[in-house]
């Protein structure tokens, strides 16, 4: 009798767990929350850019209107395109960022971390860029093809420095591979940490598609090259993905380099806003670079900086100097 009751209780718990997970993924901090915050963040970016250019800029709800309008347009698929990849690519990218965002927020809020989640985060980070490459190459358009090759070169440039930057932090926290612990243990104001942070920030700048590393034309924020064949609902998904990246990626930086989304809600929000502001500043004060310039920048200059950071981190660990 007790066993049946326990079994039923367990089943009830599992049901609640399942419902909770759905809630987390769909509402908070998953889909709805990330989308709303992401679209607000993209408005901030556009408004600040407008102010810098002595303009007024769009109203607050503009990104929402954009997405809504795109959902209502017809979706045209090129005749020569590979249909499955063409339609699946935005969904893959979207799902990747959604998972990443949900995961990162859950870790920040309820400290439910697991060893190796930093590796999972790295994998999930690659998904949006990969999706972009797949989608544009499935477009069967020569213009998209040019964009694809440039995007591929860019991804090859900055993925390695990004991982190396994470290695710096992992070294400093003595091989800790779980995000929450990394967030707690890392010394924010050490030279190697700041070096790694700067490099990672620029990698994120490239991943977000911001100047100076925006491969697509800056005037059309969507990218006339890679996304040229997309329209309607599929384009809306790309837009959403890019908006959500504005939530997930700075949060990732905050957790790895800036000591996590604590100690209070205000501090956490402050750190997130700080990264957003830095990204916007870099975006508005620099013109575009060419692809080989970007590659040289990431592999050579960032590589050297990171090498120095790693050496400093190791030295600091062994000699127990925290500020190195």
């Amino acid at each position, binding site marked *: 009798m007790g066993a049946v009751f326990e079994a039923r209780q367990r089943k009830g718990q599992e049901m609640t767990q399942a419902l909770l997970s759905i809630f987390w993924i769909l509402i908070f901090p998953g889909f709805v929350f990330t989308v709303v915050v992401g679209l607000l963040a993209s408005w901030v970016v556009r408004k600040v850019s407008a102010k810098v250019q002595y303009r007024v800029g769009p109203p607050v709800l*503009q990104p929402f209107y954009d997405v809504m309008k795109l959902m209502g347009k017809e979706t045209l698929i090129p005749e020569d395109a590979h249909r499955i990849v063409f339609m699946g690519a935005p969904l893959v990218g979207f799902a990747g960022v959604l998972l990443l965002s949900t995961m990162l927020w859950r870790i920040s809020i309820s400290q439910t971390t697991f060893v190796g989640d930093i590796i999972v985060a790295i994998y999930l980070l690659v998904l949006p860029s990969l999706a972009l490459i797949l989608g544009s190459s499935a477009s069967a358009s020569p213009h998209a093809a040019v964009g694809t090759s440039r995007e591929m070169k860019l991804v090859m440039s900055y993925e390695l420095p990004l991982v190396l930057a994470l290695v710096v932090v992992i070294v400093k926290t003595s091989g800790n591979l779980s995000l929450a612990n990394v967030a707690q243990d890392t010394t924010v104001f050490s030279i190697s940490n700041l070096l790694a942070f700067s490099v990672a920030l620029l990698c994120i700048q490239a991943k977000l598609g911001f100047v100076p590393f925006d491969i697509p034309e800056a*005037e059309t924020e969507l990218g006339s090259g890679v996304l040229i*064949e997309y329209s309607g609902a599929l384009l809306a998904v790309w837009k959403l993905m890019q908006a959500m990246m504005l939530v997930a990626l700075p949060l990732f930086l905050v957790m790895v380099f800036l000591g996590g989304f604590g100690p209070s809600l205000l501090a956490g929000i402050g750190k997130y806003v700080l990264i957003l502001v830095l990204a916007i500043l870099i975006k508005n004060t620099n013109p575009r670079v060419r692809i080989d310039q970007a590659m040289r920048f990431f592999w050579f200059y960032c590589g050297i900086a990171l090498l120095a950071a790693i050496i400093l981190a190791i030295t600091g660990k062994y000699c127990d100097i925290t500020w190195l």
Partner: protein
Amino acid sequence: MSWKIWSLKKSPWVFHVNVGACNNCDIEIVDMLTPKFDVERFGIKLVGSPRHADALLVTGVGTRQAVPRLREVYRQTSKPCVVFLIGACACGTGIFCNGYHVAGPVDKIIREEDPNAIIVYVPGCPPKPEAMISGVVKALSSL
């Protein structure tokens, strides 16, 4: 009014097509999009592909060489979309109506492609940027 049209009014992305204009209207369109007039306030944005566009800004009289291109561009604009005919030439060929190389007027071409196309006329030679913005905003709010 459907939500599609409502959201289109809130975020009209434009694609500029020149089908045989003297460039006066084109320059005034660029003027409209520069920071002085700042049409991003209305959510208007210039896009690089008709696939992303909600509105076509068509200038020019519709020369024989350019008209097939216009047809394709219209077909590739994802619907619903609005066609703005900017300038006297686009509104109805004007002084060029006797030209041997003129295949317009543009609205006839668009209607051949799609009898239900939404066409807005912004006359002028060229229409001032203020006139264009006023025309666009008026047309959108009356949709």
